[in-house]
Every structure is written in structure tokens, then in C-alpha cells.
């Protein structure tokens, strides 16, 4: 939990600054936070969506209201995690995405996520069902390690039965070796 708050401090700070009509976003905020600031600025022109979240966060200091799941600039917007061939370990480039989902779920214990594991068409169907489950298990383990409760996660493996791409080539297979997070 501490870790969680620390990770959000730059964002919260920037929001506080914004609420005080500061024109410059905080420098340490990093790329994603800058994007958030832009969103907040545009929302002043009567936009909806992020501004309620921004305002609440600013006024209450440490809470994140509204729905960050709707934010296309949030790492939470990434709901598909891809895997290497016959592998179920989470690639390094997806670890931050999964952690962002973990943080969201940890602070929203009422939210349930469905973790759907998939495989490409190569090899046998039942083994691929197992592979899809292993991939879903990897995501689940990381989410749990980051503080998500067991009851917030529903797991299902579809193996190769629900392809994202129906082509029979490397590109399609790469798109099909995946876990989808469904809120």
C-alpha cells in the first residue's frame, strides 16, 4: 500500500498544482502525468470525463475518484498482454502495465477483473488450453503479489478457441498469444 501511494505521489502533486492554476506541470511527473495534465487543462473548457476525477483528487488530496479505466492515456488502457511462443512468463515490457492494473484493483476492492488466457493455434487444443491458463496464472500471481485480493479475479482459459486474428502467420500468432483483462 505504501508503495502504491508513493507511485502516485507525482501525479497527485501535479494535480494539486493544477488545481492552484499553475500553468506548468511538475517536472518530475514523467510522461504519463504530463498527459494527465493536458487532459485536465482541456477539461476546463467544459469537457467531461477526466475532470471529475481531477477535481476530486485535487480537493481530497489522496483519493482517486471517477474512472481511470476510461482514460486512454492511462496504462490501464492496455488490457491485452502479449506473450512469447510457448511461454507464460510476463515480458518485461508488460510488467508496469500489470502493476498499474494491480494498483487500480487494490484501491478499488469492489472491482472484479476477468483474466482470459489465450494461445495461438499451433500445437494441440488441450495443451493450448493449459498454456492459456498458465498465462492467466502468471498475471494473477503478479496481481496478487501487488495486493489484489483473490476474490477480485475470475480466470478463464480459452486456449486457441477465441483467436484475435484468424490469419495463419507469425503476426497473427503473436496477436493471439495473450491475456485479456476484462473489467
Amino acid at each position, binding site marked *: 500500500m505504501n508503495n502504491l501511494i508513493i507511485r502516485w505521489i507525482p501525479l497527485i502533486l501535479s494535480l494539486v498544482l493544477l488545481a492552484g492554476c499553475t500553468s506548468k506541470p511538475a517536472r518530475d511527473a514523467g510522461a504519463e502525468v504530463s498527459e494527465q495534465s493536458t487532459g485536465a487543462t482541456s477539461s476546463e473548457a467544459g469537457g467531461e470525463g477526466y475532470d471529475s476525477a481531477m477535481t476530486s483528487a485535487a480537493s481530497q488530496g489522496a483519493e482517486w475518484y471517477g474512472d481511470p479505466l476510461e482514460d486512454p492515456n492511462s496504462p490501464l488502457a492496455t488490457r491485452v498482454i502479449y506473450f512469447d511462443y*510457448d511461454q507464460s512468463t510476463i515480458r518485461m515490457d508488460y510488467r508496469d502495465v500489470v502493476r498499474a492494473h494491480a494498483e487500480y484493483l487494490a484501491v478499488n476492492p469492489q472491482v472484479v477483473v476477468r483474466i482470459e488466457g489465450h494461445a495461438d*493455434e*499451433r*500445437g*494441440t*487444443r*488441450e*495443451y493450448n*488450453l*493449459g*498454456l492459456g*491458463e*498458465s498465462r492467466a*496464472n502468471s498475471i494473477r500471481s503478479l496481481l496478487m503479489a501487488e495486493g489484489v485480493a483473490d476474490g477480485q479475479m475470475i*480466470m*478463464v*482459459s*480459452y*486456449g486457441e*478457441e*477465441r483467436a484475435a486474428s*484468424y*490469419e*495463419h502467420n507469425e503476426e497473427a500468432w503473436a496477436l493471439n498469444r495473450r491475456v485479456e483483462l476484462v473489467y
Partner: protein
Amino acid sequence: MKQLILFVMVLLTWQHAARADLTIEITEGVEGALPIAVVPFGWQGKERPLEDVAEIIGADLHRSGRFKTLPQVDMLARPTTGDEVEFRDWRGLGVDNLVVGQVQPNGVSGYIVRFQLFDVYRGEQLTGYNIPTTGPNLRTTAHRIADLIHEKLLGIPGAFATRVAYITSVNEPGGQGEPRIDLRIADADGHNPQTIVSSSEPLISPAWSPDGRKIAYVSFEEGQSAIYIQEVFTGRRQKLTSYKGINGAPAWSPDGRKLAMALSKDGNLDIHVYDLASGSLKPITRHYAIDTEPAWSPDGRYIVFTSDRGGKPQIYRTPSYGGKAERITFQNSYNARASYAPDGKSLTLVTREEGNYRIAVQDLESGVMQVLSRGNLDESPSFAPNSSMIIYASKAGHRGVLAAVSVDGRVRQRLALQEGDVREPIWSPFEK
């Protein structure tokens, strides 16, 4: 591998092709196939039966790749009993064997089919039967006659009077949604397809009971996998397991009393054996790896299964009551979905060879593996009940098709559906 492509694109189109029949195409036959003539059967009665028995027998024998059937137009005479046969004429046509017969009315709606098989050179009858049947069973009777001829001439019974279960996936016309998935059963020649389950959610892993009266399968209709058993003739079904996680890969024990299956209810996928009478469940493997795709040896003593406990999927064998599992495949880095030949001497499985997924047979005594198929995405191999052929799923362009290959690799067939994908073929046992 000197194979002669004898029957390239011999497309057998069926009478009822407008239905969703499978069409069977023989892509390779055997050099030196036995020349045989099946003379159109005589008919003694008023209304001709709807089925042409001789044509069905001839098509079966031809499709096996082991026989070369004489076209009807080349026949000099059309005898219907042994007395009428002029053997010299048939010798002149280069025919080794001859089948003649008749269909006679029997009672209100029945028939008697008489047939005789002759050795043309010796002028001797090899076998002959009178078989009572009915109109709806006439095709099956013709397949049984083909089975008897196959057995008499080649030493092993034919598997023509059997069926194949398979999964089809068809996109609804103009539909954007999920395709419709059906579990179907057809005669081994592709005729008479019947849908026994239809779903918008995945259906996988059909498995015939040893008596051919039930099929176990996995359905996702409730949002996650569950194992069902369905009676083929009544349609009545029972949900067997729907534990948390995967409920997959059902496999009947040879006595039909148990089902081996892969369950992940305890956290990861292990093989369990479900006792159908008591409903009790016994874990057979306990390993953190993926253990799935169990299959029983014909004597019921062993279960083979796929496991990646060594890092890559390979086939392991364990006593069917549980115990130590030993690895039995060592060639290639991916071997999965093994099942025993009905004679228990070999396994068929999916192997990866130079990046291609292909069907192989591994001899259990020598451990030698022979790759039989030539596709790059072949899967789901299943032995015919006479152990002579293996049916499997393959790709032709973008479509899923079924293919069959003889165990010696010499005969090849392709079975295609008119539209959509067809996959996961399972050959039925002999009917009892």
C-alpha cells in the same frame, strides 16, 4: 517414399451434396491396388430401393486406396448371381476379384441383401452372405459388406461401417459475431451428417465411449469449460464436471466405466480419473507443470498424457491407477496429444518437425517415430478402429479440413466441408 499419385482429385460428389456433407477426396492411392469389379446388384421387387448398394461398396473399397474398382461402363456383363458369371470375361478385363449380388424385398419394408465375392482366376467363391436389413439401414449394410470384402482380401476388417465425430465452425451469413460451433457425427464416408450439439461458445475434445453410444466433450457454453456426456441416439446429456478452472480432455477407459480428464481445480492442470458409477475423482498426476490430454492403453493399464514438466511438451506414461510417470517421446522438441492404436502397438501424436506441426506414429516397442502428414498445422490424430488409417485435422489454405492417412503413409484422403472449418475428427469404435 516412392508414392504414385493415382487418384489425384477424384472427387466423389454425393447425391445430397447440398446438405453439409463432407466430401472425400483420395489424394494418393496404393501402387498395385487390387483390381476388383462390383457389379450393380440385381433387384427383385416393385419399387427400387433408394440406395445403390453396389455403388456404396465400390466407393468404400476405392476410397480405402487398397482397391482399384472397375468402372461400370467397362463391364461386359452384369451378373447378379454366381451362376451367371463368365470368369473368362472378367479375367480378360484384368480383374482379380468380383462382387455380385441382389436386393430382395423382405416383408413390408425390409430387404435381404445377398452378395458373393469371387476369386476370378480360380473361379471360386471366397465368401457370400444373405443379410436382412431395412431401407434406412441399407447404406450401413453396404458398408458392412465392404468391411467383409476388405477382411477377406486383405486380412483385416474394413472400418467402413463406422462413424466420425467432428467439430465444425461456420460463420452465420452476414454475421459479425462469433461463429456457430457444432459437434457433428457422420458416417465414415461423410454421409448422413447430424449435429448433436450447437453453440456460439467453443466446443472441443469430443471422445466416443467404447460402445459408440455416447460422446464426451468440453463445452464453454456457461462461460468456462465443463465436461458433458451425451447419448448419441437420444440426445440426452449430463454435465459431469464444471470445477473452477479447466475441465478438459475427457478420455474413456476401455471398459467405459471411467473418464480420464485434465482438471485445474487445485491450481494447475493435472490428470484425474472420474469413476462414472460412484462419481469419485482420483488425481493421477500431481505436478506444477501442464499435464493434459490423457489417453488409455487398450488394456486399461496405462494412461499416456502430455506434460511440459521437462520444459517442453512431451508424452509421458503412468499406470492408470497412478504412480510414477515416465517420459516416452524423445524425438523432436514438441510432442502432444498421443493416443493408442486399437491394437496397442503404437501411438499417434502431434509432433513439431522443423517448425511444422505434423501427425506421427511411434512404435511402442522400438520407440521409432515416423512422421506421416505433410501439413504445417496438423493436429487431432485419431486411429480408425481397425488401426489401418489415422484421421486428423489439417489446413487447406485458410480452411480447416480433415485428412486421413494410412499407417504406412501410402494412402491419403482429404475430407472437406462445403463451408466453414471442420476439425477435431474422432473415429468411432466398431459398433457392438
